[in-house]
């Protein structure tokens, strides 16, 4: 779906257009992300992902925390804060000007705690980053920030290919030192995977490195859904998610991730809980 056969073509289009867009940005100044071009792009994406459903401004009930200017365009940390009263069913992260704008869609299960999420994304050119939440009663709420970064989708971020290969598929789950039964706990999930975008070019073979990325992640606690996430090439290599869940007594967090070559990676981590407060 990220267009394996088309990836090369998209890449070429991207390479041709990027310098011109860059020049426009430098001259015109799109720092507030509010140009007519940005608005037209969003109209297109709104139609693509949400058809004719209205999308409301979330106001101060949702907020994105991301660096205004990224330090590494291939690894831009993005945190979405969601006010608990919203009770979202799902949350979509959209990077307007990326070749595949929809970075991830997160569906919240009964074992999740709140809707705040943190991950890391690739940013290919100066862009709006949006979070669109869907409430239990089917309303769509949106917030956005503007991020200055370029080249994140085609950048070869893997610094040590041999080490990356040796680590492929490894899953790590970090839990706080103390977890209380019944109290929300924040966990961090890391999956070692190149998450190749299909837009990284090999000068020697004169070909694009084929897309190969994590496309789904399921997180369960004691068999109960915490999160189900669909992911795409805008997610950085070594996909990384911070989320919250409500532990009971003991039990385990189970993670199942699948990539586009059909490989499945799993990990089960026991949750050691203290007594309920």
């Amino acid at each position: 779906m990220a267009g394996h056969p088309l990836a090369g073509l998209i890449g070429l289009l991207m390479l041709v257009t990027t310098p011109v867009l860059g020049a426009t940005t430098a001259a015109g100044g799109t720092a507030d992300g509010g140009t007519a071009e940005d608005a037209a792009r969003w109209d297109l994406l709104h139609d693509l992902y949400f058809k004719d459903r209205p999308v409301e401004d979330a106001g101060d009930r949702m907020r994105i925390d991301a660096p205004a200017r990224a330090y590494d365009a291939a690894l831009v940390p993005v945190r979405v804060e969601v006010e608990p009263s919203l009770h979202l069913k799902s949350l979509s992260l959209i990077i307007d000007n990326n070749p595949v704008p929809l970075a991830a869609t997160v569906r919240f299960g009964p074992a999740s705690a709140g809707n705040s999420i943190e991950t890391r994304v690739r940013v290919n050119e100066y862009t709006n980053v949006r979070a669109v939440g869907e409430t239990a009663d089917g309303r769509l709420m949106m917030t956005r920030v503007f991020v200055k970064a370029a080249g994140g989708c085609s950048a070869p971020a893997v610094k040590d290919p041999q080490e990356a290969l040796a680590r492929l598929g490894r899953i790590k789950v970090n839990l706080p030192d103390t977890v209380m039964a019944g109290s929300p706990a924040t966990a961090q999930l890391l999956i070692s995977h190149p998450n190749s975008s299909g837009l990284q070019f090999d000068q020697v073979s004169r070909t694009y490195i084929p897309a190969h990325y994590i496309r789904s992640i399921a997180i369960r606690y004691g068999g109960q859904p915490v999160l189900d996430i669909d992911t795409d090439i805008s997610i950085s290599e070594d996909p990384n998610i911070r989320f919250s869940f409500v532990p009971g007594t003991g039990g385990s967090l189970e993670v199942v991730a699948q990539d586009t070559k059909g490989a499945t990676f799993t990990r089960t981590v026991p949750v050691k809980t203290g007594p309920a407060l």
Partner: protein
Amino acid sequence: MGRTRVLAAVLCAAVLATTAAARAAPLAVTEIAPGVFVHQGAIAEPAPDNGGDTANLGFIVGGSGVAVIDTGGTPEVGRRLREAIAARTDKPVTVVIDTHMHPDHIFGNAAFAGVPVAGHANLQDAVAARQEVYQRRLADELGADAAAGITPLRVDQPVADALRIELGGRTLVLTAYPTAHTNNDLTVFDPQTGTLFAGDLLFLDHLPAVDGSAVGWLGVIDTLARVPAVRVVPGHGPAVGPAVADWPGALEPERRYLTALVEGVRRVLKAGGSIQEAVTQVAQDERARWLLFDAYNPRNVTATFAALEWE
């Protein structure tokens, strides 16, 4: 409108390239030991005012030929280095040694077409994966003309461990290292004068940039310190004067910074902190001691954070 601009840029590039080729003023070089010449690049990021001349370059003259050590950030810088060599010796350039993949060190290779290239065994693949991005960035920084004429890198003499290169009565020792500044770092040692070209395994004054592994780099520093050199040429920073004679003392500022980076990131990770928190907290005591701290420290912290998460 877009098309007009592109066309104008192409015409501009053609005109500039023609005049530049004719101009090629020799780079300033200093003979720091008999037959050992260095050019000190600007301690800055590539920009129009420095023309991409931001890395230290060198050449060593033997009885039968010349070894070039790094060629500069643009084909034009490479041509100016070629002119500087021609002004100092009539021996032919017999080998180009690339100390690692970064464009400020290798894009001058275009001026030495046909000369065999020696580099780390990982170099060719590493450059192949990045060259497109590097060329576009160079065009953004200096204009399309600066990036014209760059060809894919072919490494004729890959070095997996060590390689001796004969220049006629003078033997250079090339050594490849495990992942540190990059995954393709190489040093050049001239035993005859005790001169070590450290490439970007040594930064002086210019904040070290981590594009490989900070932990690996600290290990490589221990190995480097045992090289019996009497002078060292860093990849960035002073290449002449008293600083180059301080060996292995020259490694200490960089060791101190990398230690602060690694320990600082580990502390944030242990406390469950985020990348953003690490960027604002880690190695801040080092800020006043380096140039380009704000340009490179956030990137170093980000890269080191993502790597150390797997410890």
